[in-house]
């Protein structure tokens, strides 16, 4: 197994891990963290795909850099919404999941 394939499999596993966290986590901050894991897993997968031809392809790299910056800005907006929700309700969970605890 080549190194590139190893990173692609890691990326695939990261997507799965993040997807599980996105569904299973109840604290919203953890959900945004999990969402970031999905994103970065896909970046690794795409980057490994770009490196498959033997030399690093700059086109996916440029797309990934764009993606990393967009992921940060989306996270910042999501985190702002969570903080606003917590101020209004005193909890950082979705209302329908906020049982017990």
């Amino acid at each position, binding site marked *: 197994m080549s*190194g590139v*394939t*190893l*990173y692609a*499999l*890691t990326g*695939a*596993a*990261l997507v*799965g*891990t*993040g*997807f*599980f*966290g996105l569904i299973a*986590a*109840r604290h919203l*901050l*953890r959900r*945004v*963290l999990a969402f*970031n*894991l999905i994103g*970065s897993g896909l970046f690794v*997968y795409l*980057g*490994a*795909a*770009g*490196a*498959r*031809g033997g030399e*690093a*392809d*700059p*086109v996916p*790299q*440029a797309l*990934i*850099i*764009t993606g*990393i*910056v*967009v992921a*940060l*800005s*989306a996270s*910042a*907006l999501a*985190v*702002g*919404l969570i*903080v*606003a929700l*917590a*101020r209004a309700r*005193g909890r*950082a969970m979705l209302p329908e999941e906020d049982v*017990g*605890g």
Partner: protein
Amino acid sequence: MTWALDATLCAMILAVALATVLGRGVFRAIVFFVVYGLLLALAWVRLDAVDVALAEAAIGAGLTGVLFLAAFGRLARSGADAEPPPGRVNIAAALASAALTGALVWAWVALPLPGRPGPELAEALPRAGVENPVTAVLLNFRAWDTLLESVVLLAALVGLWMLARDEAWTEPLGLPQHVRPGGVMASFGRILPPVGVLVGAYVVYVGADRPGGAFQGGTVLAAVGIVAALAGLVRPPRVTRRAWRAALVAGPAVFLAAGLGGAALGAGFLTLPERIAGSAIFAIEIALALSIAVTLAFLVIGPPETGLEDQ
């Protein structure tokens, strides 16, 4: 030997990712996520993508970590930092996640092997105006993506500012910071910014020919501003200040002007003719780095707050 290095690195990345998802406590999850970002930056170096490694280290590990830690502090003030006890094991979610990973693995095996980076790229690169192929793709060949991305950043900031309360709108951005004089944060706030400004400006400047560029350098400059604000050395500006608003739109504005310049010279919108490409990209890069630095810093510092409502 290198295979062992790759395998160890991948195992550590996966372990830290699992700890982020499964570990107890939100604070611990954030700390694991920062470690994850740093390890991922190493993975990008191994994949021969140094430009991405710089962006991942500065944004994925650095700014995202600060963003989440600051949010955690704010949630703690509202009493919303505690996590509910874990429910029963979510078997459906585990199965769905395993299926998703399996589909990606299958796609990797099934997809035909692509050729080397297309010959079109090697042909076009000498006319791009810059040596670094990633910068050439970002600011010349796929300029549309990058222009729209810089607008997405602005849209996220506008969305974040819309969460501010009316009475806080004229306050400075973020929470007022109180730092112990002579403490660690105050000392860091004095030592780091000069070094950070130097590193950030250098990374922006060399981006044309070597790994680096507006995104990576702009992020380092944003981090300098955040450190200075957290240390209480500078007060973040108010939303209403025109000079800062101009800094926010300078990047997209210069980018658009260069695109229109390309159209006026007959090459087409956002197509840079070879004789102006080098200088146009340099101008875009400087303006974009400024806008990215200010936008990212404002995104992390957060909307204007009075800091009074929770006490």
